[in-house]
């Protein structure tokens, strides 16, 4: 019998130049690979993982960070299961931007989306302009994880993704439980035989949904 695949869509957000693209590129890398991985890897990355027997399929979407593209954000982040909101530890303003993204995401996607706030460029510790404690307090206040990375030195990135996956799996279970208790026994009744799509969509989040 086929094991279920957990399909997660993860989107990277944050001010321009904080290192979103660099983080994706780092994560896409594997040391065997010295040519182009797939076709559009810098903007989009598909990653399959198997975590202690659980199959996870990550679709990672990088977004355009410049101000002129800000309005297009919702097109990219809609129906995401997770969002990585990046700031640059040497740039105070980038944390301000993080806060406005968090607000927007919570408003548009509610609590179903798992958030991780990432302070990037830890290799530039000497130029730090963002207070770590302040960032961490803020993150826990809004129910987000906080993580520090350096895309340059490849530090913390894989761990950050793993924690996020963990959180998304947990969130998925909570949502399922909720649905089961809410719908109770009559859940099975309305299942149409022809196409098991509907059943599937309820139990599995689908990053591919168009709506």
């Amino acid at each position, binding site marked *: 019998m086929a094991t279920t695949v957990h399909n997660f869509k993860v989107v990277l957000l944050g001010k321009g130049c904080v290192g979103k693209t660099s983080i994706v590129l780092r994560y896409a890398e594997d*040391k065997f690979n010295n040519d182009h991985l797939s076709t559009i890897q810098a*903007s*989009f990355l598909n990653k399959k993982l198997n975590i*202690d027997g659980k199959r996870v399929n990550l679709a990672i979407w990088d977004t*355009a960070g410049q101000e002129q593209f800000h309005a297009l954000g919702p097109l990219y982040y809609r129906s995401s299961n997770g969002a990585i909101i990046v700031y640059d530890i040497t740039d105070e303003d980038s944390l301000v931007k993080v806060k406005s993204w968090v607000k927007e995401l919570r408003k548009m996607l509610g609590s179903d989306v798992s958030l991780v706030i990432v302070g990037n460029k830890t290799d530039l510790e000497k130029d730090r302009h963002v207070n770590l404690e302040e960032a961490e307090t803020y993150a826990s206040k809004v129910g987000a994880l906080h993580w520090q990375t350096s895309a340059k030195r490849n530090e913390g990135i894989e761990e950050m993704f793993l924690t996020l996956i963990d959180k998304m799996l947990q969130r998925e279970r909570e949502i399922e439980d909720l649905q089961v208790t809410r719908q109770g026994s009559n859940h099975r009744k309305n299942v149409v035989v*022809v196409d098991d799509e509907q059943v599937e969509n309820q139990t599995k989040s689908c990053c591919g949904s*168009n709506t």
Partner: protein
Amino acid sequence: MTSYDEDIQQNVFHQYFIENHPDLLQKVLQENWILCVPRSQSITDPVTTQDIFDHVLISNSELGEIKTLSGATIHLENNQLDSVRVLFKESVYLKGYKYLVYCIEHPLNLRNSECDRTNLEIHTFKDCVDFLCRETTGGTEILTKLTEICERFLEANENILYYTLGELRISVRELYDDCVLVTFCMNNLKSRCLRDFSLRNKIKLSVESIMENSLNGNVFKAVCTTTSRADAEFNKTVRNLQGMQLKDFCRTSVKCMYAIGNARCILGKLNSHMTILGKISCLKNTFELFSNNSESNLTSEDLLQLFAFLIIKLNINNWIANLVYLQEFSVSANFNSETNFLITTLEAAIEFIKSRSIFEMSCNLEVDNDLLNMIRVGDLDGVAGIFDGRKMRGGHQLCHPLCACDECEAAFNLKDSKARNCLHLACIYGHPHIVEFLLHKNVVDINEIDYSNSKPIHYAASFGHQNALLLLMHNGGDIDSPNDDGDSPLLLAAENGHENCVKALLFYAELKNTPIDVNRRNSSGDTALHLASNWGFLGIVNTLLQYHIDATIKNKRNQIALDLAHNFYVKDILLNSQKYEKIEDAKIVREKNANTKNLDHFKKTDLLLKAIENNDLQLCCFYLGIANPLVQTTTVNYCHPLCNCESCTELTPETQTRKQLVNINSTNCDGLTALHVAARFGRKEILRILLDSRADVNMVTHKSRYTPLHLACHQQRSSIVLELIQCGSCKIDATDSRGNTPLHSACSKNDPKIVNLLITQGGADIRIKNSEGKTALQIAKDKNLLKVMETIQKHDHINSDLVYSFET
């Protein structure tokens, strides 16, 4: 598009490795080696230890080479290990350790020819056909079946072009379910699909593609109809960005310069694909082309901008329809996430074009001169200052205000790099007060040409600045001269969707008796009608036809305007215009001195009907001479009943008394009345007003003899049905040319709600038989419409009792 997937944990090769080589697993974990796992169906013989050794990869980063554990050197390039394709990579986490698995097409030690790799993934329409035939009976039986279902669907939905998006989505969804059902019945597919998700996904995608192909583009055409307005609006935006150069998208352009040409060819074929799969492969190929041709990684920003550029430059006139089709009609919904990313990028590019930000990019034309710059930003005081003899910043001072010496002349007769003078620029940027000032000062020649032989009036028309255009016309601007491309102001305004300018040009010419060649053709042989039809500018097409543009002119590719129209409404108008012509011819034969009153009447009626269709309550009331209940005051003007432009206020004396232009019961050439149209399109407010104004509810169309009630039932508009029934004088049992009553129609549409309304509220007679001798109930029975049957039978019971008691 599907990508190959399997559960590595279930793969025999992988299981053998885990179970029999725990020590090697430790080593792999520690050393970051890679395990290659052949796809499960490619493994034929029992796995041996030697096989495992052949499939563990060790990288020597110093030498930059890869070896297997058994010592063979292997080459990794473009996702190929030597000649074996890597299907996917998976990171396996085990008790805190991690190793990487490459799932490969077939074992590394197997030669190509020995392995069957049919239909691993589905990429093209041909893949779909092959796959489905192979998985069902092996023959083409399934194709015949699916095609039949689709043909029946098209017959049953002959009005598909009138469907709303919602109706369309539901009916396509139902059709798709039918198709899947039929397919699942064959060769035990259903239970096999339950066991195998990836088989199921491939079946669904194949069924969908074959279905779309059999529908012959009809659904897509219907989508085009629903989005025609949005498309026309978007086309207008795009038309007006034609000045943009690749270099405006600075960073990216350098990267992909050489790919742009090819990308235009590939993406330009978007509309030749009828299946969603085909359209998506178009997108995908475009993206692949870009990424293969760029030296560094393409980011989301890059893709977005490259795409926006292509959209602006391609001759595709229904982007919105394509987007909606891709997003809402991929019923099998199993595109991989990469495909979703591609579609989102297309959507983002369209949104980006619609937004102001791209517009600002395009306005950043280089102007390095004080005066020209002031004109650009519309600084009248600054401009006036210069011409009134005050000092130019850091520049030349006029000898005296009216001086015309060479030096002074040169100072304000400046031109930019394309030889455009102040007036050209004021028209480009659309500052009427500056145009007026320049004309008043009489310092520039109103008909001066630049390097492309364009006069200021060309720019005013092309950029849609009606005020500037009017000023130029009133001051002797040349209204009908061609530029280097053969475009006159009229052609430019029509191509760029500026209805107000088209009207201004035509009205002015008519009013002043200035000759204007409506049928002028540009260097491609296109008339204004060709251009407006191509981009879906309905209003302009209408206006041009009113001015008797010749719709039979062919362009250099031998197309008439109708051939270029992609949008139902435009096609409809053009087709109707041909009808008028025929009527006109007939008239002329009959009575030599025929007045065109009747023709005129048809045209006016059509305008009324169009207004209803567009749900334009005000316009509708205007035509009918009814006081609009919602709006208290409307000024009646010349160029368009609702227009407020300068010329109109100038041209028309104020008329406050309402004049009826069209009789409320007048019909168009098909016999449609206003009420018919309001019923068909569900325009409830308008319908009420019509009923209140005593429109005849029982008029029938010429050919099919439909009443408004028939149409309301056809379109399943229950609230309209109710309105009509309640108006009192409606004949509930009117029969159409095939003997069907509204009740028959509602039954065949499977609408129990309306059936119930007709019977309970309207007292419809359920015993009436149509020309095939069928009652409504029999129709429902034939189609197995249980709900409807139930509804009728509920009342049949009572009725039949009555009948019997009456007869006995």
